[in-house]
């Protein structure tokens, strides 16, 4: 900046300074900031509106136009919602199911992803495509046989049943995401580990896994959120031990508007907390892959 000051005095000496690049830079920065703000607003505004509506009195929801600021603050709807039968228990079940699904799908999916990434075997491409077929089949068609199967095995109406179903549903994404993550880990480092005395498992555990951890955490976010939001399978396989969405969703859709917002708010928050916790690993992943 110090060089600019004398240049301004020289301006009178008929040597104009071209300020356009500087202006362009400033303008681009401003536009970038505006774009960031716009994208953030796009994400935050719906959440904000849900939160405002969830904590408004029912009477305020009937006014038109609706207020943008939380002027009619009330926890009445929220407390009625939270005190209704099954919300607390549903939350516990949902956490058990989501964490269980996460663990199981990583235990099964990460080695599968590793195999796809590292080994060439006959029918590998077909296998990758075939994996996605699970998602192509709608659960609705399977509902009665699925419930019957779990009834006969004696696992009906347990969180384990839902964990197994959700694991089956999330495995394709887990396997495909982890496979691409393992691909990004250079084979060289793994070979180096082997040369320095690690067994195959040791090399995987000590070298590949730490390097792949960010990608695995990204996969786990997918898994967690999918399990958290899944309703249909959970409603088919459980009756008295349901996950939170399965417990409240059908009753929310018939309830007055304020309850829908209260329920929506309550369903969003835990998933947001989980994503916030996982965030730092995600950024780490972008750091490693963008090299």
């Amino acid at each position, binding site marked *: 900046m110090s060089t600019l000051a004398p240049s301004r005095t020289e301006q009178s000496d008929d040597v104009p300074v071209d300020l356009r690049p500087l202006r362009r830079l400033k303008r681009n920065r401003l536009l970038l900031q505006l774009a960031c703000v716009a994208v953030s607003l796009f994400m935050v505004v719906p959440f904000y509106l849900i939160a405002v509506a969830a904590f408004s009195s029912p009477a305020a929801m009937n006014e038109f136009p609706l207020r943008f600021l939380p002027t009619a603050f009330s926890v009445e709807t929220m407390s009625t919602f939270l005190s209704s039968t*099954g919300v607390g228990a549903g939350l516990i*079940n949902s956490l058990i199911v989501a964490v269980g699904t996460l663990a199981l799908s990583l235990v099964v999916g990460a080695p599968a992803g590793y195999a796809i990434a590292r080994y060439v075997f006959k029918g590998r491409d077909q296998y990758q495509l075939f994996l996605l077929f699970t998602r192509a089949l709608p659960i609705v068609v399977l509902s009665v046989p699925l419930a019957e199967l779990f*009834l006969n095995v004696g696992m009906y109406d347990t969180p384990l049943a839902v964990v197994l179903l959700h694991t089956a549903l999330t495995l394709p994404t887990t396997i495909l995401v982890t496979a691409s993550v393992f691909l990004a880990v250079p084979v060289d480092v793994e070979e180096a580990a082997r040369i320095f005395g690690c067994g195959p498992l040791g090399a995987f555990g000590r070298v590949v896994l730490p390097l792949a951890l960010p990608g695995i955490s990204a996969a786990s976010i997918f898994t967690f959120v999918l399990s958290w939001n899944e309703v249909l399978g959970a409603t088919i396989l459980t009756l008295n031990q349901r996950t939170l969405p399965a417990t409240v969703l059908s009753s929310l859709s018939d309830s*007055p508007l304020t309850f829908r917002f209260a329920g929506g708010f309550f369903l969003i928050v835990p998933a947001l907390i989980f994503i916030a916790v996982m965030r730092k690993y995600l950024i780490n992943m972008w750091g490693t892959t963008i090299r």
Partner: protein
Amino acid sequence: MSSINDRPLSRRTALKFGLGATAMPFLAGSLSGCQGASTSGGGDFTFISTQFTPIEEKQRYEKILSTHVKDFKIAYNSMTAGEVVTQVSAQVKANKVSIGLVGGLHGDLATLADNLEDLDTVKSQLSSAGISDDLWSLATLGGSTVKYIPWMQATYVVAAHKSTLAYLPSGADQNKLTYDQYLQWAINARKATGKAVFGFPAGPKGLYHRFFQGFLLPSFTGGQVTGFASADAITAWKYMKELWANMNPASTNYDNLQEPMARGEVLVGWDHVARLVNAPKDKPDDWVMLPSPTGPKGQGYMLVVAGFGVPRGADLDKATKVMTSLSQLPAQAETLRQNAFFPVVKGDLPTDLPPAVSLEAKAVGAQQNASNAIIAVTPVGLGKRDGEVSQVYKDCFAQICKDGKEPAAVLGAQAKVLQGILDQAKVPCWAPDKAVAGQTCSVA
């Protein structure tokens, strides 16, 4: 590898172990599969139902269950009709029934008929309750045995804000409106207020098809299926087209009318009593409830019946105890007071009803006791195809009223669709059409 094992335990490793140890109960719990928390209050008798799904209604009904069924604790699960069908049929098929009782509308239970126990013994136990023969004959679901025990009933009425009564056509009695007067009322109100204040629950989940099935067509043609494409039916749909033109066009978004009424968007409208009761809840003095209008053939109205069924293989003794307890007048009256569903058993209604419910009770009473009443019921014996029949009426509405197509052509085409469904299901007619056992219902 051995050098690693020699290394003393680092702080980080210790922390990891700690974390693992904390996560273990969670994982163990989920994997052992028996540690889930009960989301239905931990009762030892499971009652699933398609009714009382809204959160507050469910909470109130759980209270009724706990006060009126003393012997054991009931886990009340309300869910969609589709879920109920899946759950019950899967359990019956697997021969492992943990559901004690199924509650649902007549149509919901009809879908499940093959999976339900015969309940003739329970019927004889309830002989003194005074449940009407009409209801019992509905409860056979077209067979020879009773498949469900009537639980509660409801119907549809008209709710109107008092400010709109000024626009009633001259000489009209608000409790004995004709369809023509109802239309004139809508026209007057629209002209006077500058906006259409009449509403119609024509949203995706709205019950507007019941208006055609149970109110409009029986009042104009005397039948629900019979005379579907007759000259009378064409008159009825022409009338409907005109009425729709004077209704709030946002009606296609309304699944129920209580919320638009509370917002002041709709001031007059026809809907289910359990929905309408919430509109005048805060200001009952501002509202009136009116019986549905009368047409050329009489005052058609639809009876909504809900019942209890027992899945095959369930504990019938326990279920009988619950059903008989809930069929006592106090439990039935409490259901009316709290959730606006009317008793099926004989007895005087309580006098201390909440204002909104007592407004409704009057309108419902006037509707039931009208000398020219034509009772209609929801389709009988169609089971899974119930929804398809409703869709026929919805399609007629969409094509005639919304798309402006010629009623005669639309009705002719839809009559074929309807007849096709009836021919495949091979069911006799249902009220108000005459049921002839063994004879498939015909639209002609």
